[in-house]
């Protein structure tokens, strides 16, 4: 991410629907995202994506499973985004769908490598962290807290890091 000012930061997180009531949290409006998340969490557990062993197999090239999961997800995603753009499909509230393009900076390389190290250690990316905790591996709460700390430390040093 290249933003340096607050204006750019809020731009990144802007969506027309949200500007209607930016200062209140509506449970009713957000419950649908909780449900999508729940289906996602079930998939994570049932396809064993939250398993440290599956991630080890992937990095050791001993199993096709994770490559199959990520590959299929990307193909489905590419087709979905193509259809949405091609037919100018709108959201359920009638908004135009807009996807912010990503801009390249060196952070994607340095940060990407660092995250890769963490992925291999913990056997989890941020999503599976929440699901590992939900599966009863309570010590992962420590991993999660440490990830929040890592996020904060990045925010602290952001301007001094090469991007």
């Amino acid at each position, binding site marked *: 991410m290249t933003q340096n000012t607050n204006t750019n930061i809020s731009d990144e997180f802007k969506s*027309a629907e949200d500007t209607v009531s930016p200062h209140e949290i509506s449970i009713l409006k957000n419950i649908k995202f909780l449900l999508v998340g729940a289906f996602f969490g079930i*998939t994570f557990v049932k396809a064993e994506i939250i*398993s440290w062993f599956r991630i080890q197999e992937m990095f050791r090239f001993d199993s096709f499973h994770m490559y199959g999961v990520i590959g299929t*997800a*990307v193909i489905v995603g590419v087709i979905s985004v193509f259809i949405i753009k091609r037919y100018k499909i709108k959201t359920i509230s009638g908004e135009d769908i807009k996807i912010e393009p990503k801009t390249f900076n060196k952070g994607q390389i340095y940060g*990407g490598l660092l995250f890769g190290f963490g992925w291999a250690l913990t056997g989890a990316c941020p999503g599976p962290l929440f699901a590992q905790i939900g599966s009863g591996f309570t010590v992962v709460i420590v991993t999660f807290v440490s990830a929040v700390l890592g996020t904060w430390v990045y*925010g602290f040093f952001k301007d001094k890091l090469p991007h």
Partner: protein
Amino acid sequence: MLEIIKQPWTWYVAGILIGLTVPTLLLLGNKPFGISSSLRHICAACFPSNLSYFKYNWKKEIWNLFFVLGVFLGAVFATLFLKDPNAIVIAEKTKTVLAQHHVNDFTHLIPTDIFSWQSLLTLRGFIFIVIGGFLIGFGTRYAGGCTSGHAIMGLSNLQLPSLIATICFMIGGILMTWFVLPFILTL
């Protein structure tokens, strides 16, 4: 039917469901799929500490926190009601290498001899649990996304920066697995 659901799901079933998250979030509210942002929103909400990176209206992004709460609850549900009674099946080669490096628990989704409260107090456990977590948080924010934001959402939108990030995630993971893990595992 329930018996089928309780078995481990095949890669293409999981892949299709995860891929469909992309259009679902877009259609429901123009939301780009991404999970590591939730860590940033938590910082912005709880300890922004006057840092410019955390000064934005996180309440506008609350959907993301609902989403990860859902991931947590979904995992609770799957573990309570859809649990596979059999032990996880692990590739023989991976199993052999790990067994040589003092990993003994191959019955759970996660090796409990590394990830447990007791091992947290050992150097080995500390590196896996605490350092690993720190690298996830620091690395994903530095890269501007994680497996969901870059590898799935970014690639779905054919973004070159996301491809670069995804390749770096894999290189980092492979380097760690092949060159550093064998050492850490024997600590």
